[in-house]
């Protein structure tokens, strides 16, 4: 079978049903062929050369050279031609103030959407339903470039048969349109619906506003999906449990219907959703390696380290192995009680950027004083 056919089979087929050993073999063959293509980018070629990467000698996924996620901010890591680029994904600029640039060709874009749908289907079923987006319509506007928020909304929207944006953008500030929200509630309160929003926006611009206004909704059959933005919430001391409980109370539903998923703009299409046991599972077309922070080797089950996300979805940028700045715990392989196969893990936190400052820490001062 040709590599592209194999990719389609893994992306379009039922997810979480391949045993780890078999999955690793399948992914390795695909990824090795993709790594050869990556060499067409001069920066990646330089990297492989400097690190002495001999693609044919890579025997396991752990040996695949990874790219630190921040490098998408500083380098144009495009594998396809400029003409083939249909969209550029931009991350939120976060701490560095520089956004990531992810170049998508048509094939990658389609596969990312397919991957997302396949994954979500495993958790939500295939049925489309009314969907409430806790954001403004402008965040998903058509164009050559798109933000992480837009990309997530666009992907998840495929599960909605009717889409309702409940926020409005006023002078770049998101404001909740309460009338529109109550109208949605009146019409769909007894139906199965989907709600999606960025975690921080949900908390600060939606749930907090509902609390302030004394509004309690009654939409018990919802599934609320949220992703991204935990860093800001952690700094505000909002734990995941508090978030889920608050959202559940305000929607009059069970906290089990509040579903956190982990993903990133550099790996759109690959999302990790909590199963009923609180474990994040890896779809068939992707892989996760939790690397020890000192040795960079894969940790054993029970260990924690940096999360590396591998994917076969990208043909326009090096998606094969991206090392994040997130810390995860490797929980197990093939044996989650939920029945999903492959590795499963827990997201723990962002890398703690605070460091003990020694007396050698004078660089910033020195630069400022020059």
């Amino acid at each position: 079978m040709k590599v592209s056919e194999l990719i389609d089979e893994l992306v379009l087929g039922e997810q979480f049903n391949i045993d780890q050993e078999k999955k690793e073999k399948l992914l390795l063959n695909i990824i090795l062929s993709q790594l050869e293509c990556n060499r067409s980018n001069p920066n990646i070629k330089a990297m492989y050369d400097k690190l002495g990467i001999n693609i044919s000698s890579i025997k396991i996924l752990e040996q695949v050279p990874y790219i630190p996620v921040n490098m998408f901010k500083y380098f144009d890591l495009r594998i396809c031609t400029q003409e083939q680029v249909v969209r550029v994904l931009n991350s939120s600029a976060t701490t560095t103030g520089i956004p990531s640039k992810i170049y998508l060709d048509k094939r990658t874009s389609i596969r990312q959407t397919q991957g997302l749908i396949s994954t979500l289907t495993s958790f939500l079923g295939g049925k489309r339903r009314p969907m409430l987006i806790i954001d403004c319509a402008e965040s998903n506007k058509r164009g050559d470039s798109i933000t992480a928020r837009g990309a997530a909304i666009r992907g998840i929207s495929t599960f909605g048969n009717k889409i309702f944006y409940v926020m409005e953008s006023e002078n770049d500030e998101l404001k909740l349109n309460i009338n529109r929200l109550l109208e949605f509630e009146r019409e769909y309160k007894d139906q199965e619906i989907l709600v999606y929003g960025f975690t921080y926006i949900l908390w600060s611009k939606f749930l907090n506003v509902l609390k302030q206004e004394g509004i309690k909704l009654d939409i018990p059959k919802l599934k609320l999906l949220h992703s991204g933005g935990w860093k800001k919430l952690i700094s505000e001391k909002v734990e995941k449990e508090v978030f889920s409980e608050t959202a559940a109370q305000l929607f009059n539903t069970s906290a089990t219907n509040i579903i956190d998923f982990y993903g990133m703009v550099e790996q759109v299409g690959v999302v990790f959703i909590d199963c009923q046991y609180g474990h994040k599972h890896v779809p068939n077309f992707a892989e996760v390696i939790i690397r020890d922070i000192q040795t960079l080797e894969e940790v054993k089950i029970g260990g924690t380290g940096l999360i590396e996300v591998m994917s076969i979805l990208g043909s326009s940028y090096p998606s094969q192995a991206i090392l994040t700045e997130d810390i995860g715990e490797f929980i197990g392989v093939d044996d989650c009680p939920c029945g999903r196969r492959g590795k499963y893990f827990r997201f723990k936190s962002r890398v703690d950027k605070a460091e003990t400052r020694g007396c050698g820490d004078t660089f910033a001062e020195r630069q400022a004083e020059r």
Partner: protein
Amino acid sequence: MINCYGLDGEFYKNGIQFEGFNQIDNCLKNNLAELHEFPVQVIILIINEYSKKIAKNREILRMEGVPFLCFYLKKVNMEKQLKLNLGNIEYLNNFVQVEEEKYIKAQPKGVVCHWMAGNVPTLGIYSVLQSILCKNSNILRVSVECVSEVYELLMLLDNIEVEYEGNTYFSKVILKNIALVYFNSEDAHLNSQMSLKADARIVWGGKTAVNAISLLPKKTTCKDLIFGPKYSFAVFDRSAIESDDLEEYLENMVTDIIAFKQKACSSPQVLFLEKSKLPVEEIAQILSGKFEKSIKRYTNLDLEEAIAAKIINKRGEYSLCLDKSLYASKGLQYTILIDSELKLEEAITGRTIFIKQVDDILEVCPLITKNIQTIGIASKDINKTIDFTDRVTALGVDRVVKIGYMNFYDSPWDGSLVMSELVRWCSLNIKGMI
């Protein structure tokens, strides 16, 4: 709340708690007179015995920086340091005639308060014993990371007795003049209280700590010794690179990098190599080999997440960038980053060294400010070394030392002869009176 681990010559493993400094201060004041009666030679002898006790304790010797501490505390070195600082150690005992019927004595300052940084545990011992040699009493505030190490080190100072001129003296008197404390560094009230007790304040730390302590209220007579944030680097000139000793120099370079997790103000962050017949890449490869050898001995990396993330990002940058290169271990044990931009790089630490080639080592001069503390040098040319040192010290560098010695505590430090600052120079001038 203050946690006090050593007071009045007694040790408290779990600490005893005080709400303020009055009781600690009173205790020190009561004990100061006894220390004042000690001839300085006695203090030197006790410290020398202390050095021997440390040297016999294998467990303590494993602590980073302790082997050099043993050497530093030896009698011969203490005498040398005191002579360098004060000119004549007798100033600490008596009024010494300096002119006809004019006498000078170095009296203690009184209570010296030390705020220690968390990166070099042994620094607390250097700081407090220099103050003790000047017969001061001391409040030693250590960081939470260092409490147990400083505690273990100070414990060894107990139960030492020495004979001097027919009398017996006990180290307990010294310990009675050291209060070992910890309190939260953000506790403004306790910091202020401690500051107000000080006749001299010695502050070791990063910018935030130093600035915060500098602004605390203090006695108008209080003397400040601030050892704030500093940056250090290394230079190898052509004569060193082309010599047979290059491998040894690079081995010593690794020693300087590895010590104190590369977080000391004397830790090198950049290595400037003068152009020679050896390509930079070849030197970097030899350095990489030296690292590989060393990491087998220094296995405890213990990297913080933030530093690991920085190293990973720098490795990514230098591997993807077309005009930069790198040599690195498989894990994060060491990282050598090579580029040609003539600048000082932000300290990454965690055994990360930037290498840059220069036509002449003097090209580093425009990079120097008063925040540069140490330059480690490798050269076979004494005249060139002296000329280089003269130029860089004029621009702000405090010390130039041979490679491998960058982190060895020395006097002067940061431009100060510390002990000369911890005494009050008092005079008696009675010419023609009698």
